[in-house]
């Protein structure tokens, strides 16, 4: 049965809603008419709309049903992989994306999806190798760039991640992921003003997002947390090394009293660092209620 012109219009409208990031409207447009279920486009729009609505299980079910009709369809295999990856069902996601790559081994979007699945599974070397192949095929792809950014951040290569985030923002100054990553990196470096600005820009785009990160910003901005800044900025290891070196340095220099004071200050700091952050966090949570 061929799709009627009204059905074609509904499908076109649903596709449009999906493109302009209104997935619920896309689903409503599809539901308004009895569409031809033999048209893979109907299933694809429905599946990606469900995914955009974070209905990952429904999106995976839709992809599976569609694959029952079109078993080797690369788009449905990719939809299934993305939906399962969102549910952290990485074994299933990997199965699906490898089945798609068996059909189209050099398709950059498929390679990027596989790299994302591998990154989620903490297989960072493998993810890097897959991204290298994707970059060979599509050197200017922003999808590949995004995943390189994720990979660099996950690997702890913060300078590279910062450079990649800036590159992403050169493509689109409002890029959500670019701002979130720079915000996270600034937060780690304790550049609270910059972090607040970056995270604020991202939250304006998606007001429901980043509540945990925003809370962390509020926590670190609290005056009671200021003594904790060296640990946040340099990490606990280097701070401990500096403290121990200072204490012993004072002793070696024959400054016994100063050494005793340093030991007491350090012990007080240790107790402070164990107790105060939790108390401040609890206080902030109570304020939110």
């Amino acid at each position, binding site marked *: 049965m061929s799709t009627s012109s009204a059905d074609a219009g509904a499908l076109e409208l649903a596709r449009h809603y999906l493109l302009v990031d209104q997935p619920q409207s896309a689903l409503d447009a599809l539901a308004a008419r009895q569409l031809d279920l033999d048209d893979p486009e109907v299933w694809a729009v429905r599946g990606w709309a469900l995914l955009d609505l*974070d209905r990952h299980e429904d999106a995976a079910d839709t992809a599976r049903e569609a694959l029952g009709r079109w078993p080797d369809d690369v788009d449905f295999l990719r939809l299934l992989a993305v939906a399962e990856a*969102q*549910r*952290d*069902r*990485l*074994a299933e*996601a*990997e*199965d699906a994306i*490898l089945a798609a*790559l*068996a*059909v189209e*081994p050099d398709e950059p979007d498929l390679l990027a999806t*596989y790299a994302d*699945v*591998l*990154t*989620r*599974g*903490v*297989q*960072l070397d*493998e993810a890097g*190798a*897959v991204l290298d*192949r994707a970059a060979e095929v599509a050197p200017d792809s922003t999808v590949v760039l995004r995943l390189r950014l*994720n990979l660099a*951040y*996950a*690997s*702890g290569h913060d300078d590279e991640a910062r450079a990649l985030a800036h590159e992403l923002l050169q493509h689109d100054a409002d890029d959500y992921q670019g701002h979130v990553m720079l915000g996270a990196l600034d937060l780690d470096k304790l550049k609270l003003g910059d972090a607040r600005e970056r995270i604020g820009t991202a939250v304006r785009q998606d007001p429901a*997002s*980043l*509540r*945990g*990160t925003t*809370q*962390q910003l509020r926590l670190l901005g609290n005056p009671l947390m200021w003594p904790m800044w060296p*640990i946040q900025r340099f*990490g*606990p*290891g*280097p701070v*401990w*090394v500096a403290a*121990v070196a200072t204490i012993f340095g004072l002793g070696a220099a024959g400054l016994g009293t100063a050494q005793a004071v340093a030991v007491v200050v350090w012990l007080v700091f*240790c107790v402070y660092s*164990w107790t105060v952050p*939790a108390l401040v966090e609890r206080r902030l949570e109570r304020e939110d209620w």
Partner: protein
Amino acid sequence: MPRTGDALLTPTLTDHRPRDYTGSIERPPWRTGSLVYGAILGGPLALLILALFDAGRLRAPAGTAQRIAAVCVACLVASVTVARLLGLDAGGRLVVGLFGLLAFVPVRRSLLPADRIRAMYAPDDDEAVVYESIFAVTVGVVFFSLLVTVLLDAIVGEVL
């Protein structure tokens, strides 16, 4: 057509189980930075125990546990040997703590990717920052580690 024997496209995640971010089924991890207290107070052995548990909770890949074990065991043996060679008794505790601190830096670095990935891909940003307190566990592990280190010290004393 697929490339035959393409190592890049060989499954590696077949054993992966979905994460429970809510903490209702799986215990949330400890903050990797908090391992420093166990490292200082209990030395490399306490760090080894705590870091291995945390690696499990963070779902770090198998190689991570091996790296952690190699670093901590090397630092443990070195700490006991150095303390003996320097003829330290009470001061030996300090050497053990210093070697714990030395081991902490690469151990934390090994756990960083799993920790960041857990946070990056949490379904909800609130859940990305859910960690369990390490306080009580650290106290227990530190006492256990001190006991074992004293025994190890006695054995090394016999050998040297």
